[in-house]
């Protein structure tokens, strides 16, 4: 309730000072990420490219979970649709990369339309289970067609198929900047989206669905569009992951990849534009460092148990910081988007 009046008040106030500060913040982050490539050693900039792609996935998740208030447990399906749409197109119908990218994006959109129409008939816990089940069916389908997808083992995408507009994306520099461009586009897009009328309506639905309906908004249509945008961004991340890192495998369709974006968003702060990035960076390095430490001092089995860290963080977050980092920050400075 208080958040609703807050955001409503924000909508009526002249947005100029708030808006310009917010634009400054977003542009600043992108410039910072641009400069970081030159400042960081190769190992970390390689990680950062991966983080940026996963952050796009998290931003897609955030549109649905953070802004619309729909908790999906099946976003791996959208990520994998993009990944396999791109990967299989390039592997078996022998198209140029740009066409395969479009096929990947389209398949993510189509899947999210279908899942959206069906899953949005349910609410709350049932919505979570339905999305979980659809994602599980998707994962099993990848395994079922193991002849083409090569199941858990996955397949590599050939270097010659990873050239876009003359840039070889298997090169570290090209890869980083391609990831950054995608990140920047999606980052500004979500920032613009949540400030638009449409974004405000999504927040209104999240805060009080009944009231939003009484005010005459078409709830189902807004939710469906949110699912499609969320699915498209997640699919874009899936396409980018296959394109930049040259690999598609069934593990990306498995349930961990539905849990991870939830974790990133919760950790960073749901319903904030910078939250997904913060959460992804933290979680990525937390897992990376802990598995490094574990493999250095303990057995290799400890290193493979990285989801243990994810589990502990999830429990601690629900117990102590349901708002995430950006949520804590926002309680200090109210203008954060």
């Amino acid at each position, binding site marked *: 309730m208080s958040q609703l009046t807050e955001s409503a008040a924000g909508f009526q106030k002249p947005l100029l000072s708030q808006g310009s500060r917010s634009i400054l913040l977003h542009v600043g982050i992108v410039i910072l990420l641009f400069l970081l490539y030159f400042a960081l050693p190769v190992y970390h900039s390689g990680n950062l490219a991966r983080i940026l792609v996963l952050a796009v996935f998290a931003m897609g998740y955030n549109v649905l979970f953070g802004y619309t208030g729909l908790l999906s447990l099946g976003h791996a399906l959208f990520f994998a649709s993009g990944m396999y749409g791109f990967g299989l197109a390039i592997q078996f119908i022998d198209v140029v990369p740009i066409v395969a990218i479009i096929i990947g994006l389209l398949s993510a959109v189509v899947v999210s339309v279908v899942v959206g129409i069906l899953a949005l008939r349910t609410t709350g816990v049932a919505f979570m*289970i339905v999305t979980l089940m659809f994602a599980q069916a998707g994962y099993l389908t990848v395994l079922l067609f193991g002849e083409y997808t090569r199941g858990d083992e996955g397949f590599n995408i050939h270097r010659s198929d990873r050239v876009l507009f003359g840039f070889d994306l298997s090169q570290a520099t090209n890869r980083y900047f391609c990831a950054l461009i995608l990140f920047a586009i999606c980052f500004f897009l979500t920032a613009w989206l949540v400030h638009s009328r449409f974004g405000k309506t999504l927040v209104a639905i999240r805060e009080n669905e009944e009231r939003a309906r009484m005010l005459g908004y078409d709830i189902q249509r807004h939710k469906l569009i949110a699912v499609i945008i969320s699915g498209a961004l997640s699919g874009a991340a899936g396409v980018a992951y296959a394109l930049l890192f040259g690999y598609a495998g069934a593990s990306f369709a498995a349930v961990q990849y539905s849990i991870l974006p939830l974790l990133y968003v919760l950790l960073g702060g749901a319903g904030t534009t910078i939250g997904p990035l913060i959460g992804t960076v933290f979680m990525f390095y937390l897992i990376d460092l802990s598995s490094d430490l574990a493999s250095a001092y303990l057995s290799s*089995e400890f290193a493979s148990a990285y989801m*243990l860290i994810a589990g502990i963080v999830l429990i601690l977050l629900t117990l102590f910081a349901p708002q995430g980092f950006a949520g804590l920050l926002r309680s200090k400075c109210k203008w954060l988007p």
Partner: protein
Amino acid sequence: MDFGPYLFVASLEGAITAAVLALTAVGLSIVFGIMRVVNVAHGEFYMLGAVLAWWITSMIAGHPALGFWVAIVAAPLLVGALAVLCDRFILNKVNYDPERTIVATIGLLYVIQQTTLMTFGPEARPVQAPFNERIALPWFEYGESGFQMIWPWGLSTTTYKLFVIVAAIIVLLVLWWVMTRTRIGLIMRATQLDQEMAQAHGIAVNKVYALVFGLGAALAALGAVLVVPIQQAYYLMGSDPLLLSFIVVIIGGLGSVLGTVVAAVLIGMSDGIISVFFTPTLAKILATLLVAFVLVFKPNGLFGKSRE
């Protein structure tokens, strides 16, 4: 073997799946029915039951059956106790908020699963059954000389498999008796109907919740101890029972225990029969899609009553 006896063997295997599934799913169902908590970590409590059974039987020297009988009592108790702790220190602290409990139990799932991986290891380990005699089964056929009883080769089961089915039925009957005929069952049902009214009448709702969560986990663990001499203890073994229990609970109607048992028999039998004739992956895809569509089009389950 002819088709008839073949189907009979398949449905016997299905009956074992159904028996274990009924125990596991009823555990999930009472937790959801009384506490309105979707316990995603339920499959891990199941897995923990099997792993503890292996651990206990390997600790106890002497006759292998002795270890098993200790395990069948101790493993569910230990798992139940762990679940009570989880309820006290996690679920209770987030006030049983539906979305936060799901996130917390997902966390719990990974903590239990990965801790098992680190301590128990990635291997599958067998537990010896306390008794395991083969029984040949007869088959009736209409032949030239009227009905006759034959003993087809390969048509057989073991005493242990029959024991699993009988044990599951007994446990479910005891549970039904506790829920409908005892004071503690009355308290549970009162809490299910109206948590606030129950509290107002002096029922310690928090204690009931802890008990129910422990009981649900213990039922899953018991199912696992029963099945572990047939399958093997493995750190990832919790995911299939979790999925199947979800399917059963949803199709049976969320929170309806009788519906859950009926659905468990239905799903368990058909799972056993389908996986004899189709690939298991395809069977699983069909099952998951079935759940999704039941939830979409009949949110109260096939046997559930509307909650209004």
